[in-house]
């Protein structure tokens, strides 16, 4: 679903009163439709037919998100709970969040003799559905709790170890971790893997141990073996720079979480700018990098004060950290301001820099160059 598309809602079994209320609340933003066309269902869980409606919807549309309205707390991770009585903005916030989740590109993985990957993709879907829950209580979206991941549990950790070993001994290495082999060529600083980004992204969503289980593998460890170089032409076309590859693996491994070694309140900064023209670079990467490059700042502060999506900020920090670009402040450098409303006094560290007088102009240039 693209962001321009209207979210289609169905309210099965609801009385006219509830339909009218919802219609009034979501007017012009969402569309009420018949069951078959809906993207999301709203169910009054306090109605006497709730259980049968829920079962019916789940049988017909197993992956369709369900928003449950109830006076009571509910114990079902697969329902987005909106507690009654709810306010209009509470309902629209929940719908916005559901729409956002639906807008995340679906991972499509062809079977192609990669049965394990298809299983993995299924598992990814399960994880994603599970994470859609717990969005709202009393109609107010809670600030998401920061989550952490351990890079060592994912491809990222194994890749970093393999890079170190490969560059250390100057040897081409083959990394096998219950998936397609990844071959590292340290001399040309490139890696090769026979998979596209959709497949890699799906693989990156789960800890490696899960793949071992999915494949019922008897292999307990990741394998790292020398790769005899027979014919470099065989790899041409699919080679990727090592740093760009690790960046995106870390981004996807993070899945919007911070690595365990960085707390959301740690003061951190970028040692230098990443080479973002050659890396996975969603919309706000340039600005977040600029903030992190100015001087020490907490990840949580970037999210709360600038208002970026926490997942984007945390994934970027994880990716930069995988390349060794994140430095924890040891109390020597001054902190930076990340005010938005006024031209920021960002560069206290560099006192020679003037406070920008021409913020309006800079904004117009930014808008112009981002738009075309």
């Amino acid at each position, binding site marked *: 679903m693209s962001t321009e598309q209207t979210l289609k809602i169905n309210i099965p079994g609801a009385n006219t009163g509830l339909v009218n209320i919802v219609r009034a609340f979501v007017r012009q933003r969402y569309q009420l439709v018949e069951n078959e066309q809906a993207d999301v269902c709203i169910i009054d869980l306090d109605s006497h037919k709730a259980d049968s409606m829920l079962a019916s919807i789940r049988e017909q549309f197993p992956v369709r998100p369900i928003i449950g309205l109830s006076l009571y707390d509910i114990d079902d991770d697969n329902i987005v709970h909106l507690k009654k009585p709810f306010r209009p903005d509470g309902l629209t916030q929940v719908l916005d969040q559901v729409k956002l989740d639906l807008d995340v590109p679906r991972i499509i993985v062809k079977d192609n003799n990669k049965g394990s990957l298809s299983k993995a993709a299924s598992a990814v879907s399960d994880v994603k559905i599970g994470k859609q829950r717990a969005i709202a209580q009393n109609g107010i979206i809670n600030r998401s709790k920061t989550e952490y991941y351990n890079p060592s549990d994912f491809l990222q950790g194994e890749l970093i170890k393999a890079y170190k070993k490969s560059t250390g001994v100057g040897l081409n290495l083959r990394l096998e971790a219950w998936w397609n082999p990844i071959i590292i060529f340290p001399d*040309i*600083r490139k890696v090769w893997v026979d998979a596209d980004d959709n497949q890699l992204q799906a693989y990156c969503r789960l800890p490696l141990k899960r793949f071992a289980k999915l494949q019922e593998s008897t292999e307990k460890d990741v394998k790292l073996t020398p790769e005899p170089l027979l014919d470099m032409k065989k790899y041409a076309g699919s080679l990727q720079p090592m740093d760009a590859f690790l960046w995106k693996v870390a981004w996807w491994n993070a899945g919007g979480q911070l690595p365990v070694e960085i707390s959301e309140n740690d003061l951190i900064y970028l040692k*230098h*700018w990443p*080479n*973002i*023209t*050659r890396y996975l*670079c969603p919309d706000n990467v*340039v*600005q977040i*990098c*600029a*903030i992190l*490059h*100015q001087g020490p700042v907490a990840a949580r502060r970037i999210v709360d004060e*600038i208002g970026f999506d926490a997942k984007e900020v945390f994934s970027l920090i994880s990716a930069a950290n995988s390349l060794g670009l994140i430095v924890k402040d040891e109390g020597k450098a001054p902190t*930076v*301001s*990340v*005010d*938005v409303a*006024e*031209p*920021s006094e*960002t560069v206290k560290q*560099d006192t*020679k*820099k*003037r406070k*920008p007088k*021409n*913020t309006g*102009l*800079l*904004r*117009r*240039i*930014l*808008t*112009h*160059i*981002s*738009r*075309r």
Partner: protein
Amino acid sequence: MGQHKLIFTGPVGAGKTTAIASISDEPPVRTDELASDMTKQRKPETTVALDYGVMHLPGDEKLHLYGTPGQERFDFMWDILATGGIGLMILINNNRPDPLKDLGFFLQRFDTLIQSTAVGIGVTQRDLKADPDITQYQQLLKQMNIKAPVFEVDARSRTDVSLLVQALLFTLDPGLKPEMENEYVESKTA
């Protein structure tokens, strides 16, 4: 009607003319001539005065994009062009004999503008010669105590050049926010 300048500089063959063309709203004005000195070994035509492009901003404002001539014998032009610039873009041709020395030279030569504004550095032609890598440029900047974005850039790519300009703008003010749709339309029609 506001008139503003963004300066592109760098050695011969770094892609200044191409970079300006990739983000200019109008076909750029070029002052190429047949090269008659050592430059002809690098490319048959080179910029002898300046390159010029423009971005039309809302409210009849203009951002003039000036590219300095690459040859040092025209360096008397550089200060004239740089005066009043909102920032500096340095493009470095990685395929030249000593690109790190080139960068050091331009950083020093435009020190006044850099100290009062900001600089963004694009490294071109890395597909032809991979060394030095971007990390070595970062190390040079650190030695010179300069904080600046350095990206690998294809001067023909609008995306690459645009990202570098955006990095320059956010270096000037990391809290910058693009104008909202209605703001932009209003100021454009004002």
